Structures are given as structure tokens and as C-alpha cells.
């Protein structure tokens, strides 16, 4: 406990001693975390939007005339067994005709010309509302469609497909940019810690010679990276929150287009903590690499 208190104090002293370098570093970390944060936020909102729209996803599989009841029963069980499926219903030919009669009584005369129901039997499927399922739902439907008892399928997934594509693009661009910026961030913290190690190299050497353990020497530097990363994450979270609040005010002209897709009222706590944890992890990792190199290159 005392050891950690000393290490934390030492780390804070190091940060305050090199204010300019460390605050610059903090700003860069915050920026590098803000960009992936924005993409994460957009992706999160697109997910929510797709989820909302997905509540209405329904597929109707029209069955062939020659399909026997055993095959239909088997198919119903197969569909019911899929985790994506929320609800399955079977509409027989007679039931379809009855529904038509109820819904369009004025068109009953058309049916009089048929001895049997002209409507095909169908299986109605409602899916669970999870945006991530759109691609899976589509693939599931295509799979079912191949079955010999299915005549055709009716569904409308175009909107979901388009949004899923935007989301995919946002995720990809976000991942790509994030990867680059995270590497930059690691490189910067690595060098800041290296500068601090260099600045305190005499002191480190003294500590070693008077019998300090490696961890006694290393811990303040590790904490320094961790604190910088943590503060950078907090700052990035704050900046994202400000961006979310300010963006609608200054971008009225495009706001109407995007306001349906993005909820500007709040920043999900999950995204905020992800930024803080990522920042801390980057800080710790960078310091760790910096110290490993230092330990390898310094005698004693």
C-alpha cells in the first residue's frame, strides 16, 4: 500500500515536472481516442436504428401446391429452432382465402370462379430485433428458400441491407483510423515515458545502486503511462460529449438527415468507459515497452 502510494506520488510528480510534454501528450491521446470514439458512437447509433426498424422484419414463405404436411411440419420445426426467429405461423390455403374474404369482402366474386382456394399456403416468420442479425437473417432466409417445398419468399430487407452497409463502412473506417491513431498514441506515450526515463536516468541509477528492486523503479513509470492514458481517455470522453451536444447546433442543415439515425441526447456510458479503459491500457502498454527497452539498455 505504502509502496503504491509512493509510486503514484512519484508518477504524478513526473507528470507535473514535465508539464508541457505531458499535457501535449495528453491532448494527443485524447484526440487519438476521440476519433475511434466518434466512429464507435456512430456505429452504436446505427445499430440502435437498425434494431428499431428490425422490429418489423417479417418473411413470408409461400409453399408449393405439392408440399405434404409432413414436410411442412418439418420445415416449421426447423424454422422455429433457429435462434434468430421470434415467432412462426402457418397459414393454410383455406385460411388464406378466409383472410382475403375478411379483408376484401367486395372482391369475393373473384373467388367464386375458383373451386379451390387460389392462395398458396404460407409460413410467416418474425425475427428477433437485433441489428447484428440482419446479415444472418438474410442468409437464413436464403437457406430456407432453397427447400423444395418453398415456392417463393416475400420480404423487404433492402433498407436494413443499406444501413448495415453504412454501419459496416463506419466500423471499417473507424477500425482502420483507430488502428493508425492507436499506434500513434502508443508511440507518443512510449516516447514521453522514454524522455522521463532519460530525464531521471541518474536517479534511476542511484536507486539501483542502493538496492532498489526493478519493480520499485519501474512502477512509477508504468503508473505514469497509465495515468496519462486514463486522463486522455477521460478527456476524449468529455470531448465526445461536447461534440455530441454542439454538433446539432452548428450543423442544422444536415442535422435533419442524421437526427433519425443518431441520438444526440446522450453518450452511452459503455462508449465513455471504453475510451477510458482503452486509454489506460494504451498508456500502460506503452510504458511497459519503454521500460523493457530501458531495462535492456541500461547497465547495472
Amino acid at each position, binding site marked *: 500500500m505504502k509502496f503504491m502510494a509512493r509510486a503514484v506520488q512519484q508518477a504524478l510528480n513526473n507528470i507535473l515536472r514535465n508539464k508541457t510534454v505531458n499535457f501535449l501528450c495528453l491532448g494527443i491521446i485524447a484526440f487519438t481516442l476521440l476519433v475511434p470514439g466518434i466512429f464507435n458512437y456512430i456505429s452504436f447509433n446505427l445499430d440502435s436504428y437498425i434494431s428499431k426498424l428490425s422490429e418489423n422484419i417479417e418473411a413470408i414463405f409461400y409453399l408449393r401446391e405439392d408440399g405434404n404436411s409432413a414436410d411442412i411440419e418439418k420445415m416449421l420445426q426447423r424454422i422455429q429452432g433457429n435462434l434468430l426467429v421470434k415467432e412462426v405461423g402457418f397459414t393454410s390455403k383455406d385460411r388464406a382465402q378466409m383472410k382475403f374474404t375478411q379483408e376484401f369482402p367486395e372482391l369475393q366474386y373473384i373467388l367464386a370462379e375458383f373451386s379451390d382456394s387460389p392462395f398458396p399456403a404460407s409460413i410467416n416468420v418474425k425475427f428477433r430485433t437485433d441489428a447484428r442479425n440482419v446479415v444472418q437473417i438474410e442468409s437464413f432466409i436464403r437457406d430456407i428458400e432453397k427447400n423444395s417445398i418453398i415456392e417463393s419468399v416475400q420480404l423487404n430487407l433492402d433498407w436494413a441491407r443499406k444501413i448495415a452497409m453504412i454501419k459496416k463502412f463506419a466500423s471499417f473506417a473507424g477500425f482502420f483510423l483507430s488502428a493508425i491513431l492507436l499506434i500513434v498514441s502508443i508511440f507518443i506515450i512510449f516516447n514521453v515515458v522514454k524522455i522521463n526515463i532519460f530525464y531521471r536516468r*541518474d*536517479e534511476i541509477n*542511484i536507486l*539501483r*545502486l*542502493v*538496492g*532498489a528492486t*526493478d519493480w*520499485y523503479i519501474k512502477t512509477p513509470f508504468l503508473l505514469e503511462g497509465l495515468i496519462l492514458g486514463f486522463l486522455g481517455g477521460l478527456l476524449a470522453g468529455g470531448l465526445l460529449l461536447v461534440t455530441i451536444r454542439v454538433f446539432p447546433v452548428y450543423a442544422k442543415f444536415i442535422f435533419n438527415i442524421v437526427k433519425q439515425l443518431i441520438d444526440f441526447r446522450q453518450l452511452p456510458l459503455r462508449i465513455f468507459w471504453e475510451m477510458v479503459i482503452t486509454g489506460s491500457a494504451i498508456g500502460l502498454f506503452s510504458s511497459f515497452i519503454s521500460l523493457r527497452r530501458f531495462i535492456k539498455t541500461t547497465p547495472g
Partner: protein
Amino acid sequence: MIQFFHVYKQYFRSNEALSDINLSIERGEFIFLTGASGAGKSTLLKLIYKEEEPSKGQILIDSINSTLIPPGKLYKLRRQIGIVFQDFKLMMNRTVHENVAIPLLVRGDKKAAVEKKVNSTLALVGLSHRKRYLTSHISGGEQQRVAIARAVIGNPKILIADEPTGNLDTELSIEIIRILEKINASGITMIIATHDMNLINLFPKRIIKLDKGQLVLDKANEAV
């Protein structure tokens, strides 16, 4: 206590800094290690506290082969050895108290115990009145005494001093050696590297002389 068996030290692409050194130092001895500049004094001291590794040979410290101590356990050896460096190696932006307390703090000693020990050690070297001074604000002689206080505060078995009087006038040099003698009286083995023959002649101690990396003299000093 300290034994050298056929110890050689050669730095990369240079002549041998030490060549076939054999010596034995008993517990509580006071030794002057002498020789001209470049004779190998500092190298020999560095081999004892393992800042350098021998190219050949074995060094036993308290019957433990120091070459076999892994880097992770080096701190255990270092805690048994107090070192006074030629350039003091003090933290100039810290107070005298903070500098002297370091060896105890790295061991995790309690604050009260550290305070008590720092006070008694500063009294031993006559620096109680400078306790709260920044090290950069005291004289060279006082800095030397801070370095000695830091070296002895952890109750080491061995105290190594590399040219502890190199930057001091004769009067201060004698004072420093007197302080070291006092510390030696408590049973700490003392190895003092110096090329100041006048000083050596003032104190009747064992002398080990190096010349071009070779041990050329090892005898009790009878001059007073």
C-alpha cells in the same frame, strides 16, 4: 568476506583493465586501494558491487559467487554494500534528508524508523544542521558527507568509497577518513580507493596497489 580468484576484466576492444587479480578481504578490514589513474581501481570496485562483470575468474562475496547472482536478485547484494561515488551521485533537487533516506525507503522501512535512522546517521557525519537543505545548496565537503551517510544508513556489511576525497582539500579529506574510520569501528568492511599517498600515510591501514590492471602490492601500512 570478499575473495577474488584469478579475476580478469577486459573492456570491448581495449587492453585488460584487470589481470589475474587474487585477493582476500576479511570482515571489518579497512583497506586503501591505490594506484595511478587508469590502474583499475574503479573497475575492481565495480566488480564488487556488480556494476561490471569479470571477463574471467570468480568473485565471492560472503561465500556467494557474485557472477551467479541473477539481475532480479542483484538488489540483495547491493543492500549489503554501501557505495560512496567519486562524483557523489546525489539527487541535487532533493534535500539532504531525502538523499540519505533513500536506501531505507527502497526497502520499505517505516517512516518513523527512517526518520530516526536518518537523524542518527546525519549526526554521525556532522550534518544534522543541514537536514532540510537542498543538496545543491551545500558545499562539496558536505555533499561528500551526505554521500557517506547514504552509504552507511542501511547498515551495509561493506562500504566502498571511490576517491571519496578526490575533490576535497587536505583538511576535509582527513575529516572524511576519520568519519570512515569511525564507521569501520562498527564492523563495516571498508574499501577506499584513492591515489592520495599523503592521506594513506596518515592512516595505518592495509594497502592494495594496482598498476596497469595488475595487483603489485598488498601489505599492511606501517607509516603514520
